């Protein structure tokens, strides 16, 4: 269904209509036009919750706007801001470079993989349409996905996912070989069932079966048993 019965309602107008259905002309058009109705349905069914913004060390300028306003320096001392900002950035860089924070369970931290370079593995939980990074509790119906970031210059990375409690895994992920890039999603998803902690490990290697880097996390049941 691609043809519109008249002039198509543009996507921005449909998006505004989806937010607050106030325009009767659009409502009438959508009612009569299957193509535009399909677009509106796509907008309404395509709500994506963005992962939370992370304030990374080394970006001291990123602060909440309220805090920025409250902390606005007077004009008299404004010239000192770049000096202090540079000094603060240098101190943070020194701290980050000299004392890297140990990862909690390997996910979210760079892992050196021979033949690929630095690889970052992330575990994402989808629950009732909402995605969450760094979630470590599972419940019936949760879907888990793996996201890989690796240098684009590397041709590919092989991913293998395993869960220690093999009997309770409904949909294990098949080993996959992916083109490297920023936050590449491993095809497929898996679920974890049961009532005990499960150890999930993801291995990234230059080729299937080759020695690589592994990130593991323990997923606890949501009810805490």
């Amino acid at each position, binding site marked *: 269904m691609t043809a519109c019965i008249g002039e198509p309602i543009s*996507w921005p107008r449909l998006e505004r209509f989806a937010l607050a259905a106030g325009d009767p002309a659009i409502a009438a058009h959508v009612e009569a036009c299957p193509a535009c109705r*399909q677009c509106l349905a796509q907008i309404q069914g395509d709500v994506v919750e963005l992962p939370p913004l992370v304030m990374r060390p080394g970006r001291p300028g990123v602060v909440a*706007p309220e805090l920025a306003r409250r902390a606005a320096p007077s004009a008299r001392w404004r010239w000192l801001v770049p000096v202090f900002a540079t000094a603060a950035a240098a101190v943070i860089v020194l701290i980050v470079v000299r004392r890297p924070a140990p990862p909690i369970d390997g996910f979210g931290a760079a892992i050196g993989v021979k033949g690929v370079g630095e690889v970052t593995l992330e575990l994402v939980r989808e629950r009732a349409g909402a995605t969450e990074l760094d979630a470590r509790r599972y419940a019936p119906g949760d879907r888990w996905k793996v996201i890989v970031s690796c240098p684009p210059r590397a041709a590919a990375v092989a991913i293998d996912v395993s869960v220690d409690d093999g009997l309770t895994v409904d949909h294990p992920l098949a080993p996959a070989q992916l*083109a490297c890039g920023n936050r590449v999603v491993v095809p497929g998803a898996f679920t974890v069932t049961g009532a005990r902690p499960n150890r999930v490990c993801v291995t990234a290697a230059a080729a299937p079966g080759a020695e690589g880097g592994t990130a593991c996390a323990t997923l606890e049941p949501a009810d805490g048993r």
Partner: protein
Amino acid sequence: MLRSREDAVDVVHTLFADLLPTWNSDVDLPYLHRAVTNRCLNLVRDRGTRARLLEREQVAAAPIGRVRLDDEIVGVALLAALADRLDDPHLQILVCRFVDDMTQDEIAAHLAVSRKTVGKRLDRIREAVIALRREEAS
């Protein structure tokens, strides 16, 4: 436009991350729309990213194609090919008309140009597509 949910989320996320330090009331929906469009076009222009997008173009994210360019749905491949031939103002109008399905009046208001300018640029876009197809055929 990118036909990749992950890349689209990245674009929106990085835009807000960049905007947060200088957030002010001038940032409205049309501004965000233009900023996201420009960032997506930058991704399509980048040859490395372009190859990855084309390789992983999601079938599920295929456009519905209500407005077509010479009977052709504008996808990543055509956008990428035209990105090498058209300048920014033309690319913005290309996206507004054939990706966002805006009318010429909407485009004129959105980009603060006259309707005549929009029409002229659409003509040039069609000429660029005809030239592209002619080159491909030969």
